């Protein structure tokens, strides 16, 4: 295995472009190194991107945020403003793994690992986060929901890499939330995850995005679930409609972490609970 520490994205892309065999980018390593140790994926070329300038910074980008690709969960949680504007996104990232994992894990890594159960991804999708992608054929901007294509697979082509994460401006009267279900209190992979981001006009929901994790081959953006609450004051009927729409959208599998019935049911439960939190946050932000 070759190990590279490029000092710019251009260098990183150049290395990746010329690489023979399996190439992986190393940020926090909490997936890459597990797969290496377990002989699941042994890269031929490993490109550590942490020496690239600016990758560990969280900075303002207009009224939104630019989050470097090596920013860790711990750094997001410790940031004094990001979590006040996007508590759901920061909490989703914070749910991943242990304190130790938080010291290393990154949003970009969580996204590019391609797991449908990645906690930060539904929160990013709900928030409308986009990423910058650079590759041999130039740069592009991609919505988070368009990155994963199947378990372990992404739409990034050979030599392409994510170079920044862009969180939109929070704007007024809005709030987000992410909840996941795990059997223990910590350390598990989500059996179901749900991210909700909404905006109010008075008490009425005027914008909403609802996403679900671990219930389909990729994280889902569920427009019918959003429609179920847009125009409502999140009364019981709206919550029930939201839960029903979330459950209907599920295309889960039976596996060691949960059953089809369980995931389908709990997706609705979490959608309701997350919506209530997001709604409260939006009200408090008014």
């Amino acid at each position: 295995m070759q190990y590279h520490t490029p000092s710019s994205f251009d260098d990183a892309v150049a290395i990746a472009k010329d690489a023979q065999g399996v190439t992986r980018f190393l940020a926090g390593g909490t997936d890459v190194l597990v797969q290496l140790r377990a002989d699941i994926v042994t890269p031929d070329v490993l490109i550590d991107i942490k020496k690239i300038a600016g990758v560990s910074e969280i900075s303002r980008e207009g009224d939104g945020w630019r989050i470097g690709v090596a920013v860790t969960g711990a750094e997001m949680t410790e940031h004094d403003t990001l979590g006040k504007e996007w508590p759901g996104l920061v909490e989703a990232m914070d749910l991943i793994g242990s304190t130790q994992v938080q010291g290393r894990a990154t949003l970009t890594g969580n996204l590019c690992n391609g797991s449908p159960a990645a906690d930060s991804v539904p929160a990013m999708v709900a928030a409308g986060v986009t990423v910058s992608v650079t590759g041999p054929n130039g740069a592009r901007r991609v919505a988070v929901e368009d990155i994963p294509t199947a378990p372990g697979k992404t739409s990034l082509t050979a030599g392409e890499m994510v170079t920044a994460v862009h969180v939109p401006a929070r704007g007024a009267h809005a709030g987000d939330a992410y909840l996941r279900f795990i059997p223990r209190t910590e350390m598990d992979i989500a059996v179901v995850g749900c991210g909700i981001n909404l905006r109010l006009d008075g008490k009425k929901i005027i914008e909403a995005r609802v996403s679900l994790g671990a219930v389909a081959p990729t994280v889902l953006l569920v427009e019918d679930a959003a429609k179920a609450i847009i125009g409502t004051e999140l009364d019981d009927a709206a919550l029930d409609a939201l839960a029903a729409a979330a459950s209907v959208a599920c295309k889960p599998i039976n596996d060691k972490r949960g059953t089809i019935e369980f995931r389908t049911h709990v997706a609705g439960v979490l959608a309701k609970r997350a919506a209530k939190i997001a709604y409260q946050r939006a009200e408090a932000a008014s």
Partner: protein
Amino acid sequence: MIHVSTKINGDDVEFLCDPRETLLDTLRDKLGLTGSKEGCGTGDCGACSVTMDGRLVCSCLVLGAEAEGKEIETVEGIADGENLHLLQEKFIEHAALQCGVCTPGILVATKSLLEKHPDPTETQVRYWLAGNLCRCTGYDKIIRAVMETAADLREAS
């Protein structure tokens, strides 16, 4: 092989490592620092906990090569020479260990907690340590030792 210069428990250290080698492998097999343990190799048990530039991490999820230019602290660096850290004293006093194999990781993680949060709640301690598995104690005596250490350190400061 990659040449790495780093600082471990305050000492300058140089070593050569295979790019696939984890920091844990390096600490244990190259540098003889066997206090950090491999319980899982997947970041799920915390027995290999160290700090890197002050940040708590699992050394099994860090490559040896990534230690270049960093400052690493391990369980071997917690005591000040002969003098145990109060946390170590309290772990012995409270029997916060039975077999003791998770203890190095738990001590490193707890020290890191108390440096960031000197007045933690029991819930905060439990969640901070959720990535440090202990199979012997049921955590009860560990939590008591941590809470008492925190209180005594606050009083002393």
